[in-house]
């Protein structure tokens, strides 16, 4: 699998709303989790957990499998069950054109896809990428590059020669998980799945739930913690363009919330239980569909909701999430839960204590 850590990023103005990060901090490179915990000699659920209790203004450092100590009967954990796709594909333009990595970002309603195209040689965006280009993947799969996305111009809309389960089947034969430069090796797709993953569709793992094990889930259930499930297929977290990434373009993501989940959420809320989102993707899906009184309806749609300090949370009371990079858009979302200053203090402490960042790293519970 290609490693794009060498790629020079280009600067280019984009007609997108600029959102400045709520605060910044220095993340030493050694605090990036380079391997899954299981490959660092840790059990999946033995990563560290930083608990921020807003009401007490208290920060506790513990281990993830002790999560139950901070929850109470009647609380509802909401999980995103989207399965990670092997969304990184190698393709070459036909005939004898440039070869590239194609990272799938989003499956669109008309069955086309948004994808990030990265040239394999030289400047990642300058190998003659153009609308109308035909690309070949192998295993009989071809694609047509249709046009640039109007909103996020690093993305292209493309169409595959296969669709439905036939396409999923061949993607799993050809693809690899999207991998960033801080990850030490091309780990198998299994390392990029939560234990409760179901339907495939995420460009990247919804990683806040990665540390859950079935043992922990069953223990929490016995403790009276209820669980509900929704799907939000994640898009790419980086467009491999520093300037564009810094603008935090509000990506569009597809979600599904079924009637059972909506009913559980509304009942838990009515009975005084806390709604605890496992991951920012769950916050995004629930806040996208919540009514003013916090009630949630079942539905399927696409959301471009941007959650910042200006957003008043309606459906979610607490959040389990990873630790986010300086300048990451997810930091904006955290400020909907607590003031930036409080997050900054906790993050500085996490850096001092050697917490690990990114998808294989440690976790943060905000109550």
């Amino acid at each position, binding site marked *: 699998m290609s490693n794009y850590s060498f790629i020079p990023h280009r600067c280019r103005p984009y007609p997108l709303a600029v959102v400045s990060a709520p605060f910044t901090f220095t993340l030493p490179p050694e605090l990036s989790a380079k391997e899954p915990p299981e490959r660092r000699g840790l059990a999946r659920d033995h990563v560290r957990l930083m608990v921020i209790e807003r009401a007490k203004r208290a920060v506790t450092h513990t281990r993830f499998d002790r999560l139950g100590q901070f929850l109470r009967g009647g609380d509802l954990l909401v999980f995103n069950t989207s399965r990670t796709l092997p969304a990184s594909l190698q393709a070459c333009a036909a005939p004898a054109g440039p070869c590239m990595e194609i990272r799938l970002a989003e499956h669109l309603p008309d069955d086309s896809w948004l994808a990030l195209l990265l040239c394999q040689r030289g400047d990642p965006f300058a190998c003659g990428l153009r609308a109308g280009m035909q690309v070949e993947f192998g295993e009989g799969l071809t694609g047509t590059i249709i046009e640039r996305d109007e909103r996020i111009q690093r993305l292209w809309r493309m169409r595959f020669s296969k669709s*439905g389960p036939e396409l999923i089947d061949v993607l799993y034969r050809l693809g690899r998980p999207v991998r960033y430069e801080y990850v030490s090796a091309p780990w198998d797709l299994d390392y990029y799945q939560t234990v409760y993953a179901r339907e*495939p569709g995420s460009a990247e793992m919804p990683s806040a739930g990665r540390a859950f094990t*079935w043992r922990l889930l069953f223990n929490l259930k016995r403790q009276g913690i209820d669980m509900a499930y929704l799907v939000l297929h994640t898009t790419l977290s980086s467009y491999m363009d520093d300037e564009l990434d810094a603008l935090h373009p509000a990506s569009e993501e597809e979600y599904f919330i079924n009637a059972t989940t909506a009913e559980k959420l509304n009942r838990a809320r009515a009975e005084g239980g806390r709604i605890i989102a496992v991951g920012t993707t769950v916050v995004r899906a629930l806040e996208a569909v919540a009514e003013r009184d916090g009630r949630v309806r079942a539905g399927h749609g696409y959301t471009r909701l941007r959650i910042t300090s200006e957003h008043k949370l309606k459906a979610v009371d607490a959040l389990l999430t990873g630790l986010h990079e300086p300048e990451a858009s997810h930091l904006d979302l955290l400020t909907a839960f607590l003031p930036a200053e409080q997050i900054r203090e906790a993050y500085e402490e996490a850096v001092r204590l050697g917490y690990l960042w990114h998808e294989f790293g440690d976790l943060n519970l905000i109550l």
Partner: protein
Amino acid sequence: MNRLQGKNILITGASRGLGRSLAIEYAREGAAALSLVARSSGHLKEVSERVREAGPATRLLLIEADLQHQEEIERVVATTLSEFGGRLDVLVNNASAIGPTPLPYLLDYPLEDFRSVLDTNLIAPFLLIKKALPAMVEHGGSIINVTSDAGQTGYPGWGAYGISKFGLEGMSQTWAAELDGSDVRINVVDPGEMNTAMHRAAEPEEDPNQWASPEEVTEVFVYLASDESRHLNGQRFQAQEENWGRKEGSNEGKRAEG
């Protein structure tokens, strides 16, 4: 009829023998969707025609995969759940490899063949259950593992196959204990001696007419796939015995202690 209405079902080893018969019978019983997995797409196409005749309303997904390769299993589950909207009700781990024929003694068993049989018969069901379980926990579901009397008794020549079935039965008990209280149940079925290509290859000197045809043993599989068996967990059934080898009134599943 319609005992399996609304059920999304995945069957491995579905192109021939027992798997083929189960696919047809499950469609006849009104299964909503079938994901049929087999090494060869050629046989699967023939099965799909029979399935369509038996249950025209049953949605059908055919997946060609060799389950001895672990990476194939993620593809099988992902493709199935993509088509099934993330919900699976029944998983039948039926695919089995017999190993080299004529059946060698363990003393003569080539290591590569030994591993290959265990990969197909034991590791693949382990991974399939692990990966399919998330699609079952919310609504409940049934996992049926196909075993053999060679999974309880050691027979000369049935080395890797028998060992894999011993393992499968033990693994099923552990799964049943761990899943206790989860609404997902797991049971094993010994279909008994059947007239299948695999059995004929293993025992070419025997008269296959003395063995049951796969169509004759499907009833217990329908029962276990249906909601009629929702309280049963961790049990072993013998398809060709009276009352499937169970005593009358034994309707409680084996439950884990503590």
